[in-house]
């Protein structure tokens, strides 16, 4: 059960065209039995369809016969509520989110509805750069408030905090106060990056000394001196162990600088200064430029100026100190974490949950480590058909506007299916009073009638053919019969047209008389009801029995009660939910030129084109109960 009963889903036809595996294609090209891979064959729904190789050929034949199984795990990815589907007018095909491509029109913050210019999006880390924050504990939006609320009304004085109106979390819990109520994001950034600058400086210094060390113009004496310095330094590479461990960002930056420096140093060959990806701003640039004049000249080699550099290309080394990004795990560093976990003041609430940690720094473990999260930006996206690049949806750029410039939703093209159960006592004169079957507990083996109404939104009448498998796939075998599988739905003509034409319109008179006359017993081959642009047919459904339930008549196992059976069925991907796959085939005569339908060109039948569309639809009827 995905929605309240009854519901309808439509399977996008793109599910029938499998992802082309080029290797598979090649293999089948080599194999003698050649199949046309272009023909969209229904995708094998279960794993058995995945056996590649020789069987592929025969399988495709069988696949054509295969009915859509709403229970297969793959169908969850191809079924959509009808209102979520789009329609491409060029390809004349239903388009789901899998068979479109998207282009971002604008970025905006869902909280403050400010549009973010595209140049700022990346630098802000895809999050709102203003004062919009979400609570790290409960994800509710945070409000900027002052600590001393009671002071004078006009001038509210800081310090300021972010506070959650839902769970009452404030940034005071993690010891953060703000000086100003504006630009909280950058203030927060400064506070959380308090340690890195030092590390940065250190690493930059280190790389600078290395640079001067390797500098070809530096005198030999200084090189020696430096080397000695390094030797002195070497025994204490761990720096001060008391220093707090670097944050992830700082370590990353340190590592990056280190690798940059290493690559620049080790690639001091004179030739590649142009092809190198590092601009002249990189620390090694000057080095390389200088070595142009020294090492490449043969004279330099003669006079031994850069003999050493020539004899051996410099070796890139690994990071050695914390300032270069190396982080040696502290001995017993996790003992205090364990102690803290075990301590009574931590408890269940003190440790961050998986969900809370998801967007936080990977080191965060306790609730105190969580930082307020700037609101993630959202986008407005234009959508194009993947195959023909036709624009399907184009929203307006402004975040405040909910309008669309172009929006080709599928419901304007395919009939909207709606489902409702038919009252038991069809003879009742008051249809509203008639008891309808409870869809949440359908009695197995007792036939019910379901009314399926298809409503046409096109300006052309549509011929529909419905097909269902006689028995639904899966372990619960429900018998389904469409009483009138072939019918026609009238055009969505102007309501006034119909009224003006009066009784001459055959459809409306038909619908009135038929509607009254047929409100009795559902009959095979007869449409139940019909209106201007809609038609209702009856489906007869005999719900199957849940395996192992008492209704099945097994009752061999007295221990399993029907509640158990229902529970088991519900846990196994809603086995007790009655879903009917229906294959819909529709064809209609459309105008050749698409845009002039409104002008009433029904006189000239020459420029009509017959179009057809076929897709699977899933009707969720109800839940089958276990007992009779």
């Amino acid at each position, binding site marked *: 059960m995905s929605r309240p009963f009854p519901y309808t889903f439509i399977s996008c036809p793109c599910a029938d065209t499998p992802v082309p595996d080029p290797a598979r294609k090649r293999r089948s090209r080599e194999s003698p039995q050649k199949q046309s891979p272009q023909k969209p064959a229904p995708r094998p729904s279960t794993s058995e369809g995945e056996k590649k190789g020789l069987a592929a050929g025969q399988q495709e034949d069988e696949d054509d016969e295969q009915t859509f199984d709403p229970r297969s795990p793959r169908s969850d990815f191809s079924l959509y509520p009808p209102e979520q589907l789009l329609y491409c007018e060029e390809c004349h095909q239903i388009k789901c989110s*899998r068979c479109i491509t998207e282009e971002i029109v604008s970025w905006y913050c869902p909280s403050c509805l400010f549009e973010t210019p595209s140049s700022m999006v990346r630098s802000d880390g895809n999050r709102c750069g203003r004062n919009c924050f979400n609570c790290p504990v409960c994800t509710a939006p945070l409000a900027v408030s002052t600590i001393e609320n009671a002071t004078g009304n006009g001038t509210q004085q800081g310090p300021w905090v972010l506070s959650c109106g839902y769970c009452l979390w404030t940034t005071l819990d993690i010891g953060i106060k703000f000086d100003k109520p504006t630009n909280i994001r950058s203030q927060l950034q400064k506070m959380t990056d308090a340690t890195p600058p030092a590390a940065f400086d250190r690493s930059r210094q280190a790389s600078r000394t290395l640079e001067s060390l390797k500098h070809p113009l530096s005198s030999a004496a200084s090189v020696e001196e430096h080397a000695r310095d390094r030797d002195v330094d070497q025994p204490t590479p761990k720096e001060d162990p008391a220093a707090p461990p670097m944050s992830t960002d700082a370590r990353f930056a340190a590592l990056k600088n280190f690798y940059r420096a290493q690559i620049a140093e080790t690639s001091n060959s004179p030739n590649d200064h142009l092809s190198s990806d590092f601009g002249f701003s990189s620390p090694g640039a000057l080095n390389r430029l200088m070595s142009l004049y020294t090492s490449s000249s043969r004279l330099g080699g003669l006079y031994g100026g850069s003999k050493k550099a020539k004899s051996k290309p410099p070796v890139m080394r690994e990071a050695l100190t914390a300032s270069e990004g190396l982080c040696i795990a502290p001995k017993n560093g996790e003992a205090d974490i364990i102690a803290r976990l075990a301590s009574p003041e931590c408890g269940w609430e003190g440790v961050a949950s998986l969900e809370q940690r998801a967007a936080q720094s990977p080191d965060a473990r306790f609730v105190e480590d969580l930082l307020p999260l700037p609101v993630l930006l959202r986008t407005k996206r234009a959508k194009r058909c993947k195959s023909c690049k036709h624009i399907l949806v184009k929203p307006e750029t402004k975040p405040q506007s909910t309008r669309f410039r172009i929006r080709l939703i599928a419901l304007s093209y395919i009939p909207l299916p709606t489902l409702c159960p038919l009252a038991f006592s069809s003879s009742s004169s008051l249809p509203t009073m008639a008891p309808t079957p409870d869809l949440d507990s359908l009695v197995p083996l007792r036939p019910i009638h379901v009314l399926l109404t298809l409503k046409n939104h096109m300006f052309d009448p549509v011929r529909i053919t419905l097909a269902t498998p006689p028995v639904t796939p899966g372990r619960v075998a429900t018998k389904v019969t469409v009483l009138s599988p072939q019918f026609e739905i009238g055009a969505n003509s102007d309501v006034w047209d119909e009224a003006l034409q009066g009784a001459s319109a055959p459809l409306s008179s038909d619908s009135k008389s038929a509607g009254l006359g047929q409100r009795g017993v559902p009959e095979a081959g007869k449409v139940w009801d019909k209106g201007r642009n809609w038609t209702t047919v009856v489906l007869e459904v005999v719900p199957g029995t849940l395996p192992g339930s008492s209704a099945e008549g097994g009752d061999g196992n007295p221990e399993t009660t029907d509640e158990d059976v229902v529970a088991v069925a519900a846990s196994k991907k809603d086995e007790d939910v009655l879903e009917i796959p229906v294959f819909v085939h529709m064809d209609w005569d459309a105008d050749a030129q698409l845009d002039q339908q409104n002008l009433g060109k029904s006189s000239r039948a020459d420029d009509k084109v017959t179009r057809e569309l076929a897709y699977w639809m899933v009707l969720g009827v109800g839940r089958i109960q276990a007992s009779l």
Partner: protein
Amino acid sequence: MAGDTSPINASKRTSATSSLRHSQTTRPASPHTPQQQIRSGSTSFASNTSPSSSFRSEDDAIIFEIGARWLRAGFEGNSTPACVVGFGPEDSRRAGDYRGWIQGSAGAARLPQPIAAEEWAQSHELWRLDSREVDLGLVEDKIERAVRETYNQFLLTDAGTTRLVLVLPSLMPHPLLSSLLSTLFSRWRFSSVTLLSSATMSATAAGLRSALVVDLGWAETTATAIYEYREISTKKTTRAMKHLMQETGRLLTGLASNTEDNAGTADEISVGLAYCEEIASRFSWCKSKNYEESSNKFNQTLAIPSPANPEQEYMDVPFLRFAEPTEKVLLASGIPEHEMDDEERSLPLLVYNTLLSLPPDARGTCMARIVFVGGGSRIPGLRQRVLDEVSSMIDRHGWSPIRGKALERQRERLEQLKLSSQRASSQPEVPKGNGEAASPDTPLPDPPEIDFVEQKLRRQNRDTPVPVQGVLREIESLGPWAGASLTTTLKIRGMVEIEREKFLQHGLAGATRDIDHPVPDRRSGLRSGGDRSSWTLAGWA
């Protein structure tokens, strides 16, 4: 395993071919031969005119790390991924199915019926490594949806416009790799996909060139020895997070049934996986090696949401019990070594065996650079415990695969004869001494032999620091994703770079099997003599 190397070190490698195929920036390894000078001249020219990737890569590449449970995605140059997306049942719902929001996510509540442990975990994984059991179509569906959602919700750029870097474990079944790549290529217009191996990237993110990367993943724990960015040995064990989760599930099921008197069978779990994972991620811990059972150190109880009814009730559980699954699953304490199958060695054994299989030089380097990554490395105390166990194993056996009573007897005899030599061989400071334990009767001279070559080398490069060798040491890594982000920012191209057209033509079958095949160097378009149409899968082949 030697195939995948990241080209950071390309310039220093002496072999010309290897540097040619790695360095996208074409830094000549030995810039002194005239031929290479000409070549690099043309390279710089080509790089200015070639319309291909050099301009495209102005946009930041997108990095995906895909595992069995999670997808991490983000931009190059960031230290952490922008998002982590799961593949659980909540993420496989139909469009328009909002039950996860209405009734709470699946798996948070108690299961109506206990189910088998294997099936219990299955719905949460994207794939399993045994590709016979995998519905590839479903995998494709899941990947497609996860990537699409990631782009729409977190990355907020147009999908397919920038280069894509995939961080994958180096052992991937080809059907999975193929469906992953064909999904990406056929759904979006990625111009090229670069594959990077997660172990090497973990080492890179630790600032190391050689390391023993222990990846405590979902389905299996892998220990990969990396030497100069090359994977030289991999061993794996199934003692990983999935088993840990199942064991935690059994523990919680036991706790639930105690209160409810509803005994299920041994291998069935009646609590939801999401709930179980929540507990495990918060409170799993590992005892230290010298933890005394008698000490009442962690005897306090802890209130957790009751496994019988997680939504409403709390239940007191002794904190010690949360260490039980770790102890049992990952460390296999209480199970003698010979009873474990090859694929289910405990973590200390895995680390030890991987080190043992290395050549002595590499072993000495790698054992001083052990890197733990993966979800399991978050379990507090585990890493230290594994290292302690390994260290005690080295103390006991030295570097020798030989075990048994006869050896013990011989050793005792020898010990009586020569105490000093025995001591020397068992000290971990001598990483090259794997010969000693096996044949300890070759007497060692008491002052270690002075190696003249070594000394001379030392004297020569006094300014280059002596690498730490031969001690067990753990280095922290930022993780494979950060490593790939680093590597990509530094404009280093991976060895496996799959281009769209070539893949769409032939699929994985189009890759050359030739390990030494030079990767087409796109920046040197004018020069390239070799056939540029071929590409390699390197380590993934």
